[in-house]
Each structure stands twice: as structure tokens, then as C-alpha cells.
């Protein structure tokens, strides 16, 4: 069994907020991802069983949403905003800088397993562009110097 009893309990608790328990599918995926970093095929099977769905039905949900990862990711996912206001203010230059500094391309994970670099659509803080999230943390008004400070080079 890929899911712990605590995870099952947390999923059942969310399911109680809805008329149909399958409505808690997104919450369930997030509960599991919070603990494991990503959602494996085993997890899909187990969650589907708890929610009374077929695994394929749940996978259809899991693969639809930007913030559910169906492949392993680093400890922290970098979501840099690539939408219009951040783009005007240099988001692509920041991406290039991150790729160089972390020695990865978009979609890849650093060798030490620390970061995965992904784009994200408008983060809703356009007045403080460019914006990005690193894990749960949101960073605003990023410039090259600030970017270097967010990702200190290990010596």
C-alpha cells in the first residue's frame, strides 16, 4: 500500500466537504503530493480506491492540472511566471540566468535533487513583476542580483 493511514484519513476528511467523495480528488492528489513530492502510479491506484473512482478517471484529473506532478521533481519546484507582464520586465532573461546557474534546462531537476525548473502562467502579482515561486515561497520584483541571492552557489 502506497498510502499511509494518516493520508487516507486526511483524504476522507476532505471528501466529507462534498456530496460525492470523488469531488475531493484534487485535494487528495495534493495531500499525497505534499508528502511525497509527486504522485506515482501506485498513488493513483490507492487514491482512486479511497474515492471510489477508476485509476484512469483519476489520472485524467491528475494530468489536467498544472500543479500536480506525475513525475518525480526536486525538493522545491521553481515556477517562474512567463506571462505577459513578467515577460515585458525580463522573465526570459531570468530563466536563462537560472538555467545557467542551476545547470539545468526548463523541465529538468538539478543534480543534487534540490530544484526542478518549470514555467507557470501569470502568478497574479503583475504590479510586482517579475515574479516566481520557489516551493511555497513567492518572490517579487526579481532582478539578476536578487536571483543570485535566491540560489546561492554551493562551495
Amino acid at each position, binding site marked *: 500500500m502506497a498510502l499511509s493511514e494518516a493520508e487516507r484519513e486526511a483524504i476522507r476528511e476532505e471528501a466529507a466537504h462534498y456530496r460525492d467523495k470523488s469531488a475531493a480528488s484534487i485535494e487528495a492528489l495534493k495531500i499525497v503530493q505534499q508528502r511525497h513530492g509527486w504522485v506515482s502510479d501506485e498513488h493513483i491506484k490507492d487514491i482512486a480506491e479511497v474515492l471510489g473512482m477508476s485509476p484512469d478517471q483519476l489520472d485524467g484529473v491528475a494530468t489536467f492540472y498544472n500543479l500536480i506532478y506525475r513525475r518525480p521533481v526536486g525538493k522545491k519546484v521553481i515556477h517562474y511566471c512567463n506571462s505577459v507582464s513578467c515577460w515585458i520586465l525580463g522573465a526570459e532573461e531570468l530563466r536563462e540566468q537560472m538555467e545557467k546557474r542551476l545547470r539545468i534546462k526548463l523541465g529538468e531537476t538539478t543534480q543534487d535533487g534540490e530544484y526542478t525548473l518549470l514555467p507557470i*502562467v*501569470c502568478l497574479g502579482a503583475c*504590479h510586482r513583476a517579475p515574479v516566481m515561486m520557489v516551493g511555497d515561497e513567492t518572490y517579487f520584483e526579481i532582478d539578476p542580483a536578487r536571483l543570485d541571492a535566491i540560489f546561492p552557489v554551493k562551495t
Partner: protein
Amino acid sequence: MEKPLTKNFKADGTPATLEEYLQSGGYEGLRKALAMAPLEVQQTVKDTGLRGRGGAGFSTGVKWSFVPMGDDAPRTKYLIVNGDEMEPGAFKDRLLMEGDPHQLVEGVIISAYAIQASTAYIFLRGEYRLAAERLSQAIGAAYERNYLGDDIFGSGYDLDLYLHTSAGRYICGEETALLNSLEGRRAIPRAKPPYPQVSGLFGKPTIVNNVETLCNVPHIVHYGVDWYKGLSKTADAGTKLYGVSGRVRRPGAWELPMGTTAREIIEEHAGGMQEGYSLRGFLPGGASTDFMLPEHLDIPLDFDAVTEVDSRLGTGTLILLDDKTCAVRFVLNLEQFFAQESCGWCTPCRDGLPWTVDLLQDLVEGRGRLEDIEQLERMTGFLGPGNTFCALAPGAMEPLQSALKYFREDFENYIAKKVRVAHG
């Protein structure tokens, strides 16, 4: 100038506490509403003419009036807050939820009472972690004081409110796609009719309202129709949270009378363009609105006046195109967003948006042909209103069709290889 929606915002960015909210008149609206009949509350909101702040601008009171009421109505009804703010350029709902979470919670309770909803959900985009934290606290505090739960203030009215954090897709902002998402499915829009007011979440009558819309409700009930109408400069009532992003000196958001001009917003509040940049055009209400030009700066930004220059007020958060940013690349960025965020359900959107992106990409990379511009023009019709399942693709065509109209030379310059210095 009164600023009901943002009066409790603090300079240090911390949220208004419940005590501060109560001192500013908070929950007085709820007390008053519970002493009124639900239909009276509906009528009050209808009388103000409040129009939905999510972008479509439909009358909130009229929307509510389609919900079945009375003894024969279904007992289970839902009120849902659309807090899935993902329109590029929009950031106003984030500020409202982070700055004064209690205001939204009170707005939810009053509005739920008005339609006699039994359960309410806040559908919040997953990336808004701070808003999620603050709303959870505000909901908890409301339960503790019996503003939520059973028999609210001894009125006999019961309401539960849950926070749902989404997992990210722009289409969740479309109200029927939002319902599918809340039911745990892929966020694909539903056919209408039936409309959600009659058959929405789990087939029950459902109202979906935008965050800013609902934040207006406590003040309307507390201070009345005449007061509310007096806040605006035009026929559209109330204040509006306007925002500006792009190359201005002080990008930000400001609560101003509805109908404030873009000139006042950009020049006074946002401090004007940055040194060395001038304004070429702007999207008045997020990515899915048509460009307006500097010659439109003195038009009042309300729902009706903006349509007279073939655009839409949308979310009221302006994105500026400056003279050093290429209009074609600007539009390419927008179309990449829409192509990625298409849910894939209907063919014009699923296939047409990536095709549009390819055409624009060819242009900026020097592979464009003159007929590509004509093809882009045809796309704005193929993907326009009436040809798609929902408003995503037509929205995507708005900045494109207006860019082709106003900045055609920029497109042609790529073909004539006279490319101006482009960004990105």
C-alpha cells in the same frame, strides 16, 4: 473619496484582524441582512446595478434572481466564490483576499443568505498560499463567533463555508468549468442551458460570483443603494479596483470610483511611464481584452464606455504596451498562454490556438509570409464568438484582432525584414 473595499488595507501588508474589521463596521451588513427577507437582500443588490467584477459585467442581482426560491425550491443550493484569478495582468482579487479576508467571508455569508444557499465554497487558485492561509483563519474566526455554522445570530439560517484550493488551470475561471473542477473532474466547460443558477454544482442551483463582486455586498447592505450609487462617476455603480502593470513608475492597484479614466490611473496613480518609455497601447482588463490606444486615455473605464471603442473593461487591471516592447511578441506571449491553457474540449480552440502561435512564431523568427497575416485575421473569425464552446478562444482573439488593426505595421515589418529592436 470613499474606498469601502480597501479601507482596512494596511501599509505593512498584514491582513485586517477581525477586531479591526468589526471596528470598521464589519458584520453590520450581515446583521442587517439577516433581519431582511432573502428576496429583499436580492432586490437591494439588484437596485444598485452592481455588475460582476470578474470581467463579464453581468448584473449580480439579476444573476441571483434566476435561482429558484421559496418552499418548492431545492433545499440544497450553493454559493461559490470564483477566486481562480489567472487572467494575465490581473492581481486585484489577490489583494482583496490578502488584505481584508473577513470582508470576503461576510460577503459570502450575506450573498448565500440572499439565495438561501446551504453550502458555500471559496474556489481559490492553488498558488495563492498567503490568501489561503488568511482566508482559513477568517473562516475559522467566523465559525467561532457563529457568523457561520448553524442558526447564525439566532436567525435560523445555517451555512457552511469551505475553502477549496485548485491545482491550476486558467479554464477553472469559466464558471461551468469551475463547477466540474469543484466536483473533482477535469475543468471542461458545460453546455448551457441549463444554467448553473438552476442546475450547477452536483445538479443543484448554484451561483458563482467573483471575489471583488462579493466584497461589495456587505457595504451595499450596510450603507444602502443610494450611497453605493454615489460612489461612482458613471452609470455603473460603486468603486473599482483598477490596476496597472508594465513600464510605469509605480505599478499597483487602486480603489477608485467606477468610470475613472485610464489617463488618471496611469499618469496620477501609477506615476506615468518610466523614463525613456512611451505608451503605445494598453489592454484595459487583462489578457483577453482588445487593445486601446493613447487616444482613448480619456474614456471613462466602465463597462459601457469601453465597449464603445471595441474593447472590454474585463478585470480593470491594465497591461501597458510601451514603445520598446514589440507588439507582435507581446501578442505571441498572450497566445502562448491561451494555447497552453485551452482545456482541449472543442476543436477550434484546441487546434486553432497552437496554429495561431505557430503563425506568430514564424513571423518573429523571420519565416513569415504576407498571407500569414491574412490567415491570422481569419483566425480571429474562426475562433471568435459563436464558434467555440466557451469564451476562452474568443477572448484570446481580442488582443490579436486589435493588434492587427492598430499595430499592423509591426507584423508587416517582420515580413519586410525591417524588424525593430525586439525584446525577449
